[in-house]
């Protein structure tokens, strides 16, 4: 291709990149301005002075607790999901039993479910066992609904582990637990880290379950918390911008530091229908 052709292509790709990134840049810019500047100045202008107090204001105004809830609920659900998914994947791919194919099929069916179709019974189940407005309901729901995709990502790796490892371990008199926790699990670290990333993105960004099961402010996570919060600051754009930036920052930071893992995780989640 000639140089003009390539230049046109680069311009096209650059415009797409601009479209993808610009709304977020604009958000960041107005998170550092006050209303007067937002409403009267050019939307493209840099803030005349950086209003970091927008961030301090919303953090102290309640975002801090939502943030903390998001961190521990996301973290706990990740640990549970990846551990239980690894155990089940290990038993399905490495151990010998008749129903393994059928059980795997059940997990894979879980990939196609529209969550809204299960929402009302879930709500009434949690109501009956007093888990409505209790963070445990969120943690176990996240775990259950992320198990299928997590196992899907783990499967390929487990299938390729060489049999000799198990044979050698068993001959040496190792128990199943030692084989799994001390030999197999450490070997799967690269693929486990991919599932951790993808679970982190899903859990951090989840909305419907928290919105349905949690009503107390003290248990809300960021996605739901920022909803009411923004209602409060209806007209204060700087505060709203700061709130949104805080809520997306951890995932963006993870992306900056582990972009290849994130790309890998998102590509392998493509099977989720």
């Amino acid at each position: 291709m000639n140089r003009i052709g390539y230049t046109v292509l680069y311009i096209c790709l650059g415009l797409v990149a601009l479209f993808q990134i610009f709304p977020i840049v604009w958000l960041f810019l107005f998170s550092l301005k006050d209303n007067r500047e937002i409403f009267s100045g050019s939307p493209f202008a840099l803030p005349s002075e950086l209003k970091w107090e927008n961030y301090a204001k919303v953090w102290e105004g309640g975002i801090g607790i939502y943030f903390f809830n998001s961190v521990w609920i996301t973290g706990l659900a990740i640990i549970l999901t990846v551990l239980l998914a690894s155990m089940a994947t290990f038993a399905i791919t490495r151990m010998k039993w008749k129903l393994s194919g059928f059980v795997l099929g059940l997990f894979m069916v879980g990939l196609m479910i529209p969550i809204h179709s299960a929402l009302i019974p879930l709500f009434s189940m949690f109501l009956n066992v007093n888990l409505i407005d209790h963070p445990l309901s969120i943690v176990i729901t996240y775990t259950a609904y992320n198990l299928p995709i997590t196992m899907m990502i783990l499967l390929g790796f487990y299938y390729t582990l060489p049999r000799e490892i198990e044979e050698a371990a068993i001959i040496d008199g190792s128990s199943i637990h030692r084989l799994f926790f001390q030999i197999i699990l450490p070997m799967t670290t690269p693929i486990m880290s991919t599932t951790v990333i993808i679970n982190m993105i899903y859990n951090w960004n989840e909305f419907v379950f928290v919105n349905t099961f949690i009503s107390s402010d003290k248990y809300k996570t960021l996605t739901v918390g920022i909803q009411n919060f923004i209602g409060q600051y209806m007209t204060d754009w700087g505060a709203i911008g700061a709130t949104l930036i805080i809520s997306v920052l951890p995932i963006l930071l993870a992306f900056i530091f582990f972009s290849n893992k994130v790309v890998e995780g998102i590509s392998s989640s493509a099977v989720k229908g």
Partner: protein
Amino acid sequence: MNKVMSNKLMIALYVLPALLLIAILIFIPLILTGYYGLMDWNGIGTMEFIGLENYINGLQDPKFWESAYHSFLLAVFSTLSLVIYLAISLILASKIKGADLLRKIYLIPMLLSSVAIAQLWIKVYNPNNGILNSILMGLGVEHPPAWLAEPSIVLYAIFIPILWQYAGFYILIYYAALKNIPESLIEAAKIDGATPLQIAYKIKLPLIMGVIKVTIVLAIVGSLKYFDLIYVMTGGGPNGASEVMASYMYKLAFSTNDFGYGSAIGFLLLIITLIVTVIIRKLTASDDELQY
């Protein structure tokens, strides 16, 4: 060896925690949704069995069909947008310097929560101070529309952030598939005098047809389940103009406390999603999958 690896107790110990979780929190609720759909129930009081009344009402409910139509429109838009994603991916995969960085930039919106995306785009569409109308007024448009308040355009306005959110995801998938095509095939076609467009049409696209079919299923089924962004951006409004199946079901159950009817709509959503998935899989399945 075999004895250890087929120890029933151990197998149960490793599989059952995960299996019980998905049984109790995914499969049993799905069955219960169908069952609750047979009840007159407000969620707290006693249930009264009313047979298929909720399902019959659902199938005759113009609001349900309107929301189903909106979900269908989103599915059509999403499928059509795959063409744009594919075109961008074809350019990106044609020996572009910085392709890796570009596809990562494209992916950024995909990492944000739908709630944050919705709140951001509410601001983008703000009639007075939003970036879109600021640009339009700068270009001399005197009365740009209040995008999210106009029943006739709200669904299109909502689709732009959806397009924005998923672009990076589909480009990522297409790019990976295109990069998998052996360079020798492309080189051979070039030597035979094929133009870049011919190479794209006659070699690259057929070779990644399997991936394209998967993305069509993803786009359509994903659209039928779409909820978060619409719920936050417009709540289905104005006046139902952006209501989709999931948001309609959610409102019935958790705003009007009609749990029986909401369950019936939830079950219809499940059935429709499953039927559509099977139909598209059938339509896009082919036994002449190309080998290379």
